[in-house]
């Protein structure tokens, strides 16, 4: 499995890019001990115009490079945590629905559909607007809008694994139903969940950026979306203010997508789109 993943060029590029972003996020306080909000020079300095400010300064004279590094922290944190929370909601719900069927299935799926009928982004905006826009509420809002696909995926996987003969064998061994579900069925649904989770992190980062762009971000946390939103009015005179955070988003999301696809190909070699066997 790992061997197949490693032999996938795209996926390895994704891993390298992601590691780079993570490292930058981790060492941001060391690189820029003053934090992202500190005004360091006069505003609207172009990249490389002044030594020590390779990406220039923003409308208030703050270091764009420092903003990017701290923004990486927020993006990754929101992406990871909201995905985890979404899995925590979606996996149990989908598993119960798929395994027990009948009314449990009906109930859980109608509940899921209720969420699916509302556009993701609109719901996220409403949720953040109702709560105070803090990192916590943003993460929670993103988690709440992104669990339904997880629940549906897990339900479908569980339903197909449930009919396999080893599940019958486990019943004959006298194992209780919850134990069969947790011990026998769920481990066999892990690979598609992992693939989906890696792609969900990317979507969550995009959602967070969009929210911040609209001014619904945490006012105390620097984020890429906020940077682009703030630079919107000066995009024609100071292109670098929206360009660099945009690039950062593209690179991170691309990296995660590459990894997700690589994982998918590694888990399902037969479905791999490339013909090289």
């Amino acid at each position: 499995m790992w061997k197949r993943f490693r032999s996938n060029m795209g996926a390895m590029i994704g891993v390298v890019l992601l590691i780079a972003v993570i490292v930058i996020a981790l060492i941001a306080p060391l690189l820029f001990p003053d934090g992202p909000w500190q005004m360091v020079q006069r505003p609207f300095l172009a990249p490389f115009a002044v030594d020590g400010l390779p990406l220039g300064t923003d409308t208030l004279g703050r270091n764009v490079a420092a903003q990017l590094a701290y923004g990486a922290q927020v993006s990754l944190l929101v992406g990871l945590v909201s995905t985890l929370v979404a899995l925590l909601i979606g996996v149990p719900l989908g598993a119960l629905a798929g395994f027990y069927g009948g009314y449990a299935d009906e109930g859980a799926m109608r509940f899921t559909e209720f969420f699916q009928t509302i556009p993701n982004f609109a719901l996220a905006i409403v949720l953040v607007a109702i709560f105070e826009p803090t990192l916590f509420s943003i993460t929670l809002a993103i988690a709440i809008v992104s669990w339904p696909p997880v629940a549906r995926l897990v339900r479908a996987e569980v339903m197909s694994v449930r009919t396999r003969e080893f599940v019958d064998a486990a019943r004959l061994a006298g194992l209780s139903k919850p134990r069969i579900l947790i011990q026998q069925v769920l481990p066999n649904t892990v690979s598609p969940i992992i693939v989906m989770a890696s792609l969900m992190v990317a979507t969550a980062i995009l959602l967070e950026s969009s929210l911040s762009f609209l001014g619904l971000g945490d006012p105390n946390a620097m984020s890429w979306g906020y940077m682009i939103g703030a630079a919107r009015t000066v995009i024609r005179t100071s292109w670098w203010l929206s360009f660099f955070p945009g690039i950062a988003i593209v690179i991170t999301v691309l990296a995660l997508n590459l990894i997700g696809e690589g994982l998918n190909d590694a888990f399902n070699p037969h479905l791999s789109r490339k013909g090289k066997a």
Partner: protein
Amino acid sequence: MSETLTVERLTIGLPEGADRPFAVENVSLTINKGEILCVVGESGSGKSMTANALMGLLPQGVEVKSGRALFESRDVLRLSEADKQALRGAQIAMIFQEPMTALNPLMRIGDQISEVFAAHGLYTQSERRKRALDLVREVGLPDPEKIIRAYPFQLSGGQRQRAMIAMALALEPKLLIADEPTTALDVTTQAQILNLILDLRERRGMAVMFITHDFGVVAEIADQVIVMREGKVVERGDAAAVLDNPQHEYTKRLLDAIPTGKLPEARELSDTPALEIKNLCKTFRTGGGLFKPVREVRAVDDVSLTVARGEVLGLVGESGSGKSTLGRTAVRLVTPDSGHVMVGGVDLAALSEEELRRQRNKVQMVFQDPYASLNPRQRIMGALTDGPINRGVPKEQAQAKARELLEIVGLGADAAMRYPHEFSGGQRQRIGIARALAMEPELIIADEAVSALDVSIQAQVLDLLRELRERLSLSILFITHDLRVAAQLCDRIAVMQKGRLVEIGRVEDIFLNPQQEYTRQLLAAVPGADWAQPEEAMA
């Protein structure tokens, strides 16, 4: 006789990392006009690859390395894709093992047949239709007018295979390649399809390349035989010569491994029953909506039978006869509508879910598909000890027992720490048997336990079951569609048809003196029945 196809020294390379460098190595063969050549071998012997190469249907990464295949003095292996397309269907046609997946589920049968003409740009719409109808009639499908308007799912397995054959015959090909076309079918249906192929060969003078793993089928239809093993031809010759006087060690082994219908010695049976089934009924209801009536299938219809302690009872029937449902009801994976399943004085059919879990160990099951019946993410040890530990056996003791059982089924104790994917189908089936034994059951139900295995592996597993029967005086309800297999292992045989028990009796009574018409039909349909006859007489 004129040669239809000549394959010379065909070698097909496998991609790197496969278990051997060549799928097929230096294979030469000749098929004459009007001749049936059977290519026999176990799974992985390269017999299907040979056929796929001729049709230009090799999977990606697999390619022809060397050799020629001359068909009408053209090398079909070197044709351009366009030429191959013109050849396929028109000159060489192919039928596959699984007719359900080979037919387009969303197209009517008649349209699928007409499409063959359309693909080669022949005839007008109405003429295609008429010809499709003729073909449907020729392959003996009932009610042709209705059949050409039917969808594949409305047909039975045998009917679908006939439809496939009709498509293959549409352009009067000179060569028909049949890749295990009867393997997925019931014996009686298989016999009909084999007759159809023989009949068509007679009428049209086609050459047929027939790929199979079953020597019974070979005995039934082959003129020439080629035996393949690991990509190489190990034996070739006239069908009669190869069957009666095999030269190569491997062919002999394969022939020995075939369940010949040789009858085992009758054994004395004890009077105490291990399993008593009384008036068991199970009806499945499907569909049923506002405008649709509920569809009812009486899977098990008032069946009563007993399995004595230490007895192996064979339960034989075609697919849909309810034999599997009966087995699943006996372990209560399916709850019956009415009737009793008495095991050791307890009526399993009447227990509540909770009581049942405590009584589960009494009856255990060995499943059909060795690949689906073991959890791929659980070590063998876990599979063997989950049940006993759940019953309260101390962990140490359960693990010791598991190792002992693995020894008994011939795998060795170190198999315990490995994962299922490290084992072959036959080995997995042994693990399945060990898992059933670990629960110390009073009865084992083997549901088509050897059907998915190659003949030589099948023989080994049957030997194991026979040995266990002696050693542990096991009681087994052995469910199978294959009468030959049942004859090898069982003391008595019960025949089921459409949910009802047709006949039950000692093996020799059933085989030599069947009372019911249906049993006689089943026996007559067994492929190679005539050929196996002399041996039976000897026994």
